[in-house]
């Protein structure tokens, strides 16, 4: 499941739903990303997506992750719109037979989401607004996977 949501979500509820009724999955790994306050510099984070296109592009990477890590299932839930510090921005869950594949797939998906997914991110702070681009570290993280 790949979903964009414009309201706060409960990562725990997503995990509970994701783990329900599995008999062959031995490992579920999750990652939850939260909006940071940056010591007051980031009062609001505004995330823009291109509805339909953004889910489609994430879906292509999700398909790659499914094959590469032999996943049983995965979920990506991503916030859009105005996000306050402390709120969850992204939730990724992966299910596999064993833990290594579940951990690595989660890491792989997050490196893509942080560096190349079709989102545009604006930070609203005390001094005004600024558009944020991926850091060199974000790109280096993605390149670990040969992408």
């Amino acid at each position, binding site marked *: 499941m790949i979903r964009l949501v414009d309201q706060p979500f409960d990562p725990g509820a997503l995990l509970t739903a994701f783990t329900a009724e599995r008999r062959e999955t031995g490992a579920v790994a999750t990652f939850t*990303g939260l909006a940071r306050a940056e010591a007051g510099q980031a009062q609001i984070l505004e*995330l*823009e997506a*291109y509805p*339909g*296109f953004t889910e*489609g592009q994430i879906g292509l990477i999700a398909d790659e992750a499914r094959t590469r890590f032999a996943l049983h299932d995965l979920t990506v839930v*991503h916030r859009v719109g105005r996000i306050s510090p402390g709120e969850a*921005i*992204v939730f990724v869950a992966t299910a596999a037979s064993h833990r290594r594949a579940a951990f690595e797939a989660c890491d792989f998906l997050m490196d893509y*989401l*942080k*560096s*190349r*997914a*079709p*989102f*545009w*991110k*604006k930070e609203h702070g005390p001094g005004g607004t600024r*558009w*944020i*681009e*991926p850091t060199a570290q*974000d790109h280096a993280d993605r390149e670990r996977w040969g992408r």
Partner: protein
Amino acid sequence: MARVLLFGPLRDLAGWREQAVDGVTSLSALRERLAADDAELGAALARAGVQVAVDQALVRGDCALAPAAEVAFLPPMSGG
């Protein structure tokens, strides 16, 4: 009538998010029209790193536009 969508910093630069443009049958003609209306936007749309999606599929170079095409200009993606 093509439906043109701008995202991220391009939207701030242009001051609009969505616009209907009449009578253009190719992406290059659409670019010329937008540049004629707003030279600064035209230059920004032509910058390296700005991708174009027509009906939600990425395209490279020029292409024909169907009458009801949706054309999105995508500045460098920031990730989530």
